[in-house]
């Protein structure tokens, strides 16, 4: 653990130092290149606003109305039939839609059942092993102005489902119930 922590502290400063050194060695006008490249970031952030507002508002309505919870109740028996613990189902369902909600839920599950319980380990693995698909889609496509997403959403959601199932079996296999 100590090594992991040390590594994560050193990683970014190390990377910055390396790029600056490398750039200087290759005689790149570093400061000017940085400023020019950075300008793009401002534009991207602003063009992102409408995409993100649209998506987050829709998700928020769905959540605040209680519809999400109701949906979970519907899915629960189906998932329990396969053998997945019902407590983790809401997390699996929300992980695709809202990152902050999922993080809250993971914290809650760990706090309730303990970090070293089956549910705690499973929640940890689900939280760590996948991204919030809807958010990634909105940000990446939104930032460059792609409106027609093609099969991207379908692929993302199917990959998420696969990831939950894989997480369940791996945790079961490694730690047991």
């Amino acid at each position, binding site marked *: 653990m100590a090594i992991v922590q040390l590594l994560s502290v050193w990683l970014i400063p190390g990377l910055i130092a390396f790029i600056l050194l490398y750039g200087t060695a290759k005689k790149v006008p570093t400061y000017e290149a940085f400023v020019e490249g*950075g300008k793009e970031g401002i534009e991207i952030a602003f063009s992102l606003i409408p995409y993100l507002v649209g998506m987050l508002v829709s998700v928020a309505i769905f959540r605040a109305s209680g519809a999400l919870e109701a949906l979970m109740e519907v899915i629960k028996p189906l998932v329990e039939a396969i053998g997945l613990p019902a407590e983790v189902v809401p997390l699996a369902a929300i992980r695709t839609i809202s990152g902050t909600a999922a993080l809250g839920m993971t914290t809650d599950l760990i706090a309730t059942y303990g970090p070293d319980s089956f549910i705690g380990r499973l929640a940890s693995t689900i939280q760590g092993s996948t991204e919030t698909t809807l958010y990634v889609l909105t940000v990446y*496509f939104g930032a460059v102005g792609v409106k027609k997403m093609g099969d991207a959403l379908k692929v993302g959601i199917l990959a998420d489902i696969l*990831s939950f199932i894989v997480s369940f079996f791996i945790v079961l296999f490694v730690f047991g119930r």
Partner: protein
Amino acid sequence: MVNLIWVMMALIGIVFAAANGTMEEVNKAVFESAKEAVTISIGMISILVFWLGLMAIAEQAGLLHKVARLFMPLVRRLFPEVPPGHPALGYIVSNMVANMFGLGNAATPMGIKAMGQLKQLNGGGDEASRSMVTFLAINTSSITLIPATVISIRMTYGSASPGEIIGTTVVASTISTIGAVLIDRYYYWKRTRKGRKP
């Protein structure tokens, strides 16, 4: 499909709120989430400017090109439509590497930059290309090496071994990333079979 999901989430929510008496919560949520979205976007300016600035140095120094070449055999198979040596590959590889190390705030700017390059390659239209869908599939299931946030939560709640889930997370995310690429390939195969534009 996005239009449908977007409209359905909002409409179902409003109908549900009417039936359930949660309209007040919905009202609050609309404006709070809109504000949150703007806060997130504006908040991203700092990391976007910083990392895109730094990556501009890396690109001009030829570092991105080198990094891309290191992973060339893999990346070329994943993105057969991107010409070898194209700068998009450098950003794609950087994004994947940053994701692996859990550097989310570095990964996003590089990913956006890669998307922009892929869009140019696609003629600048507003439609997602094959490579873009593949890139997103990889990103949504992202290979994780160190799930730092989860580890810190586990520490907070007194886990005997906060890092013990690193192994399961790595395996789960690796398998799901491979799965995501296969699912992506399957849909690509379906598109071409139908004779639609790939």
